């Protein structure tokens, strides 16, 4: 049941990201819904779930986009692990939690992407990439963080209820 929920969630978010979002967010920036889902899964379910979700979401993203293998997979797995570590130390009802967590995760993923691309032989102006891509992406991701976080939060509450 749990696996089915995560599978459907990733599939829905991936399809929205590939079809609807490019029409709404033009100009080369758009939110990464899967990153927001991995962050929320980490904060609400812990690192085991988040690492698995990060692996699965990143794998599908890499295969669907034809990107360098690992470009989405590795940062999402690491993000899941890092935010999963914080699971027991956060106040889960706080509305600011997903906002700041996703902002931090976007910056982390951006830095990781730059590092990964440099190692893969794709040099770039790192400072310009950070200012012009990572920071706008952080704001876009914050926009989508709350609905995704609360969808996963309500799912976690439902699981916690006695049958």
């Amino acid at each position, binding site marked *: 049941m749990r696996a089915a929920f995560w599978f459907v969630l990733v599939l829905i978010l991936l399809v929205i990201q590939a079809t609807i979002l490019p029409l709404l967010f033009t100009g080369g920036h758009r939110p990464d819904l899967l990153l927001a889902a991995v962050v929320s899964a980490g904060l609400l379910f812990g690192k085991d779930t988040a690492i698995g979700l990060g692996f699965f979401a990143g794998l599908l993203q890499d295969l669907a986009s034809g990107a360098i293998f690992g470009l989405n997979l*590795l940062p999402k797995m690491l993000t899941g692990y890092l935010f999963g570590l914080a699971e027991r130390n956060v106040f889960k009802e706080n509305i600011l939690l997903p906002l700041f967590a996703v902002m931090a995760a976007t910056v982390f993923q951006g830095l990781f992407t730059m590092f990964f691309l440099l190692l893969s032989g*794709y040099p770039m102006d790192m400072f310009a990439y950070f200012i012009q891509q990572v920071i706008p992406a952080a704001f876009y991701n914050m926009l989508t963080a709350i609905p995704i976080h609360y969808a996963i939060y309500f799912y976690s509450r439902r699981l916690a209820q006695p049958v």
Partner: protein
Amino acid sequence: MRFFYKKAAIISAAVLTVILLAVFFAREAHKFPLLEKTVVSILAPVEYVAAKTGYGFRHVTDFFGNLSTVYRDNETLRAQNEQLRQTEFNVTEIMAENDRLRAMLDYKKVSPQFSLVTVAVIGRDPGSWTNTIVVNGGSNDGIKKDMAVVTPHGLVGNVIQVSANLAKVQLILDPRSAVGVLVQRPESRVAGIIEGNAVQPLAPRLKNLARDADVVIGDKIITSGFGGIYPKGLLVGEVVDVVDDEGGLVKHAILKPAVDFDRLEEVAVIVRSSEPTGSTPKGDKQ
């Protein structure tokens, strides 16, 4: 404790495997063709439905945007001329599609040197660094890898992966893309290579031009035909800025692409061309 170590070992092995795979396949164009094709094929029907919904939704928002513009114009012009009240708010999705397809048909008529297959865009890139699209035509329609993809406005990219009824197209905005080009102006004809720009995806760069190369703002850039993928003479874009590279002997030009990549709905694949495409099929970077 032992459980913890076992789990850590599994996760470490997974990460190590992915890193090794990434290092091995980082520079290859297609790493897991079968897996990639499977994922794309499974996603495509869902993407097709969602894309159609998305287009419908955008046309609704466009409709309301048009309505407010028309209303404002009406207010201003009503006093001067009654007949200017005609509005465009009854534009429907079918009419818009009709216009686009008519433009494509006109392009086919004025480009007899190309055999074109018109296909619809059904999915975009879910990644953040790459720039690809998925179209609803494949090998059954005569589409093959490395064919050029265009719209009536100019060059879109090239086919990088083909299934029976689907193809993945790498846009010229993708940082891995490189297109051999020429400055169209007769007195210039400077040749160069356009590469996608990860920092500003909508502003690809004409790179490594000599400092004294005759490239000025406003120059139209067309494909050179070198490289084996793109036929000669396709419009790529217009130079909007020329920047000297720091401390070097070269400069680069920043382009405004001829195609509006944010609004791609139909594209045409050049399945046959009488224009030269050069003799070095491996010349274009993937």
